[in-house]
């Protein structure tokens, strides 16, 4: 086996994995704070890509202005969704809530198609195009950039939760909503903030994913891989999303190279099934103990 080739494949896999991790973090954030499983995360990611396209190509803004605008648009969208769709479902059966997010995903996919058409589009080039070599191993520049951006954002999140007041409030809410309420934490506000942050992150990830592979109304299937990531990592663990993301990226890359492209998805899902049997709550997830 050619070690250089292996290294290149592994690097490409980790690069893709970083984007999984980033989106996974967005997913975990919402789950941790609100116990809502957001299956529309892939479509929100897609929305970010299209928002960027709208700002950059539609309004002719510079990509570096369009990027924060797209992220902000994602945040606003998160806020609207939380207030209009998720809050009315508070206290409902979790199945109902996750079906609401599936419905939301479907609405988004349709709306995007109505507005921008069904065919895949390319985002304006804004990432550096000079190839990067680590040693002799080639790394696609966009993938490297995506990796760096994801690493920075995830690092920021980790710091935020550890040191900021809001982060602590979020952790408290995640641990016990009732108790958090009684010590004066504004739980509904925490819910809103979690959705805003998560959707903004997903939108940002969408711009990165779109810059690498183009955008299309079917881009939401990216969410399927993210689902695998968070289940493997554990639904309520940020570290789990990080490790799971990199792991899945790597596994997909290796499977694609040595088994063939058609094996990518099936290998990750098979891995998922095995893991569910061995560790039903993911690598780092909390095992909840049920009492009567």
């Amino acid at each position: 086996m050619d070690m250089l080739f292996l290294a290149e494949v592994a690097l490409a896999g980790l690069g893709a994995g970083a984007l999984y991790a980033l989106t996974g973090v967005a997913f975990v954030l919402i789950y941790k704070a609100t116990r809502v499983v957001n299956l529309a995360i892939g479509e929100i990611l897609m929305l970010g890509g299209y928002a960027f396209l709208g700002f950059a190509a539609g309004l002719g803004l510079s990509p570096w202005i369009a990027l924060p605008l797209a992220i902000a648009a994602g945040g606003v969208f998160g806020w609207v969704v939380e207030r209009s769709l998720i809050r009315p479902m508070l206290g409902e059966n979790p199945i109902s809530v996750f079906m609401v997010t599936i419905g939301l995903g479907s609405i988004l996919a349709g709306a995007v198609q109505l507005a921008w058409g069904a065919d895949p589009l390319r985002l304006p080039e804004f990432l550096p195009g000079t190839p990067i070599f680590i040693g002799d191993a080639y790394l696609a520049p966009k993938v490297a950039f995506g990796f760096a951006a994801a690493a920075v954002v995830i690092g920021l999140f980790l710091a935020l939760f550890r040191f900021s007041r809001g982060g602590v409030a979020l952790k408290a809410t995640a641990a016990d909503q009732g108790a958090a309420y009684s010590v004066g934490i504004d739980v509904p506000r925490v819910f809103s903030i979690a959705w805003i942050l998560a959707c903004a992150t997903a939108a940002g990830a969408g711009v990165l994913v779109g810059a690498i592979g183009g955008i299309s109304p079917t881009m939401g299937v990216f969410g399927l891989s993210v689902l695998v990531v968070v289940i493997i990592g554990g639904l309520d663990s940020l570290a789990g999303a990080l490790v799971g993301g990199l792991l899945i990226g790597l596994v997909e890359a290796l499977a694609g190279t040595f088994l063939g492209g058609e094996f990518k998805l099936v290998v990750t899902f098979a891995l998922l099934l095995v893991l569910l049997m061995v560790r039903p709550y993911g690598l780092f997830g909390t095992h909840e103990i049920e009492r009567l």
Partner: protein
Amino acid sequence: MRIGTLKTSYGADEALFDSSVQRGLLVLLALGAVAFPFVASPYWLFLACLCAINVASATGLNLLTGYTGLVSLGQAAFMSVGAYAVAVLEIRLGTPFLLNLLIGAALAAVIGILVGIPSLRVKGLYLAIATIAASVILHFLFSHWSLTGEARGLSMPPASLFGYVIDQPFTLYWLIMPVTCLMVLGAANLLRTRIGRAFIAIRDRDISAEVLGIPLLRYKLTSFAISSFYAGLAGGLWAYFFRVVTPESFPLVNSIFYLAAIIVGGMGTILGGILGAVFMTLVPELLKFAANWLTPIYPDALAALAPVRTIVFGGLIVGFLIFEPRGLAEIWRRVRRFFHLWPFRT
């Protein structure tokens, strides 16, 4: 008008159809179903068959999700097992179609049990994802196995009975509709038995159910088996209906469709599964009519149809969950209740 019902025996209380009005309506409905093929155009027959297949599958999912509380996003995959089994049997062996249907359904049930095994350890979303994983693996298997025709799928000869070929909507109707009716009746009856009551107890709180002496593993797997049996049978009917089975015939979005159907119809009621499946099958057709009708005024209507359909699909799920969580069955119940006391109280 009906003021109340008096029941003098447990048997009467447990009966599926508890009043003479209901029985009368049912007879009318049955007569309508028999008369329908003689008056409807092939297109409407086509839709009726499609509705019936979806009702069968949705009813199966309703047993699993609505009555046992186990969420599955694998219903379409279980259907594909039935469909492929039927296609392979029909092409390779040419066995009688009823036998094929039963074998397909039984195979789907076995796969269902396998997929259901994690249900003992994981619940809720984790389980839903496990069923997605099973769908992905089955899809991969079907699209790369030479027996199932790989990516191009299988086209199969029509079903035949004593040399009589069943390949038109009119004849297919007489195959599909009775099978579906039997399946729905079977489901309704199942829920009156010990098994059905165990399902409901598990849905309401599985740990309590276990404490009460209901073996969780056995009943959860039973629920999976029955639900996938229904899916497999529906898939087999589907195969005879379209006479082509491809890996893309049963995508994940179809599983979501069935889940949406029971939500819109009303989870945990037999009527809900029926109403939801029929409603969700007909809505896209109505949209199609609208688009065709709009085309002269607005030429791009047809192109806008698909996104609108996706939006309406999502909108129905969200709308029903927020505004009418108990679905169409609840609306129907309200309408009925209104007429019970009408015109004395409105």
